[in-house]
C-alpha cells in the first residue's frame, strides 16, 4: 500500500521530461546540430563534476560556501530576531526607526560589495557584509510583524497569571510569534546562499561562486556548469532541510506553508 502510494506520488511525466531534455541536449551537442563552442553535453558536465570531486576542489568549495552561509545566516538571525523583538515590543522604538528601515531595506545587497571591498579587500569579511545585510531585513520584518500581531488576549492571559515581563515574552510572545519568525528564517536562508555566491563572485575569491567565475574565465564550461548544478542542488537541499526542521519544531507550521 505504502509502496503503491509512493509510486503514484512520483511525477512520472515530469521525470520523463527531465530525462528527455537531458537526452535531447546530449544528442544535439554530440551530433553537432547546435554548434556552440561552449555548450557542454550533460555527460561532459557529469565528468567535470567527477573531476572536481576527485581533485578535492568541490568538497572544499562546498565547505567554504556552506560555512559562509551558516555564519552569515546565524549572524543575521541573531541580529534580526533581537531587533525584531525590540521593535515589536516597543511602539516608541518602532515610531523612531521604521522609516529608516523602510529606506534601507530596498538597498540591493550587491551594492555593498564595492564599499566592503574598499574597507576589507578581498576577504571573508567582505563576503559577510554582502551576505548579512540583505538577510537581516526579512528576518527583522517578519519577527517584528509576528511580535506585534500577538493577540491582545494572550497578553491578558499573561497578566492574569501575573507572569513577569521576561516570562511573558519567553512563554507567550515567543511561541505565538514563532511561525512568522521561521518563515523569515527560511526566506533568509535561501537569500544567504544567493548572496554568498554573489559575494564570492565579486568580493571573496573562494567557494562555489568563485568556482563558477574561475571556470568561466578558464574557458572550462563543463566545470562551470558542474559548479552551477552544485549550487542549485545545495539550494534545494537547504530549503528542504529548513522545511523539515520547521515542521519538526512547529507542528502548526504544516498549515502555514503558504507563508505569511
Amino acid at each position, binding site marked *: 500500500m505504502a509502496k503503491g502510494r509512493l509510486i503514484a506520488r512520483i511525477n512520472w511525466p*515530469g521525470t520523463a521530461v527531465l530525462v528527455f*531534455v537531458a537526452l535531447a541536449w546530449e544528442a544535439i551537442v554530440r551530433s553537432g546540430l547546435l554548434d556552440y563552442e561552449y*555548450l557542454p553535453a550533460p555527460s561532459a558536465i557529469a565528468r567535470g563534476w567527477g573531476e572536481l570531486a576527485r581533485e578535492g576542489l568541490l568538497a572544499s568549495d562546498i565547505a567554504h560556501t556552506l560555512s559562509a552561509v551558516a555564519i552569515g545566516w546565524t549572524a543575521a538571525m541573531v541580529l534580526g530576531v533581537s531587533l525584531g523583538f525590540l521593535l515589536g515590543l516597543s511602539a516608541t522604538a518602532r515610531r523612531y526607526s521604521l522609516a529608516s528601515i523602510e*529606506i534601507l531595506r530596498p538597498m540591493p545587497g550587491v*551594492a555593498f560589495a*564595492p564599499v566592503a571591498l574598499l574597507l576589507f579587500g578581498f576577504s571573508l569579511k567582505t563576503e559577510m557584509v554582502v551576505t548579512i545585510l540583505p538577510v537581516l531585513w526579512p528576518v527583522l520584518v517578519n519577527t517584528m510583524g509576528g511580535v506585534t500581531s500577538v493577540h491582545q488576549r494572550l497578553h491578558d492571559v499573561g497578566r492574569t497569571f501575573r507572569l513577569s515581563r521576561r516570562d511573558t515574552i519567553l512563554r507567550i510572545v515567543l511561541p505565538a510569534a514563532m511561525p512568522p519568525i521561521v518563515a523569515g528564517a527560511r526566506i533568509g536562508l535561501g537569500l544567504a546562499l*544567493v548572496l554568498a555566491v554573489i559575494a564570492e563572485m565579486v568580493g571573496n575569491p573562494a567557494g562555489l561562486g568563485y568556482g563558477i567565475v574561475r*571556470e*568561466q574565465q578558464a574557458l572550462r564550461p563543463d566545470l562551470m556548469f558542474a559548479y552551477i548544478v552544485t549550487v542549485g542542488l545545495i539550494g534545494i537541499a537547504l530549503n528542504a532541510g529548513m522545511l523539515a526542521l520547521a515542521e519538526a519544531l512547529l507542528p502548526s507550521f504544516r498549515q502555514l506553508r503558504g507563508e505569511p
Partner: protein
Amino acid sequence: MRSARPWLHYVRLGVAALPSARGLLPLVVLLGAWQLLQTGRSAYFPPPSDWWNGLMLLSKSGRLYPALLATTITLLLGLALAVAIGTAAGLFIGVFPRFRRAAGPLLEFLRAVPPPAIVPVAILFMGYDERMKLTVVVLAAIWPILLNTASAAERVHPLLLDVARSFRLSALDRMRLIVLPSVLPAILLGIRVALPVAIVVTLLVEILTSIEGIGALMIGAQRNFQSSQVYGLLVLIGLFGLLVNNVFAVVEAILLRRWPPKTQGENF
C-alpha cells in the same frame, strides 16, 4: 472617491501610508555623527558631505547620467520582457494542467539555480555586451512571474470559466476577458518579487563585466580608491531602489482598483 486623476489619489494614499517621519531619526543621527566626527580626510570613511562632492564630480565628468540611464533602461526593458514572456508562458502552463505536471520538475530545478549563477554562463555564450546584460536580467526576473501566473491560472474560479462557455467566448476572448483579469494580482505579486532580483542582477552584471551602468561606475570608483564616490553611488542606488519600489506600489494599487482580486470563496 473616484477622482478624475486616480494616480494623484494613490500618490496621496501612498504618502499617507508612509511610516512616521520621526522614524528617520536614527538615520539622521548616524549621518550627522559621521559628518561631525569625520573631519579629516579619511580614505575609508569619508564624511557624507564628501559623498555629495564625489557624485558632483562624477556628474561633471559626464559619466553619471549615461550610466544611470543605461541601468534604468536595462532594468525596465528586462522587466517588461520578463513580464511579457513570463505571463504568456505562465498562462499557457496554467491552462493546461497536464503540461504543468510534465514541466514541473524542470521548472523547479531551473528556479532553484540562483540568478547570479546565470551571469558567467551568459558571458561565455554571448560575450560582453548590452544584449547579454538584458538576457540575464530577463532570465533572473522571469521565474517568480511565470510560476505565480501559472499557479493562479490553474485556480481561476470554475464558475468564471462556465460563464465564458455560456457566452461562447473564443479562446482569445476567454483569455483576455476572464483569465487575465483573474490572474492579475498573481502577476503583480510576481513582479514585486522579481523587482529586487532584477536590480541586484543588473548591478552584478555591471560589476562583473564593467558594461556601462551604475554598478560599473561603482566598482571603477572602488578600484581607484575614490571612496567618496563609492559611498555617493551607494546612496544613489538606495534611492533608486526606493523610488522603483514606491512607483511600482502606486502602479499596483491603480491596477488592482481597476481589476480587484477575486477570491475563491466569493459569490458572483
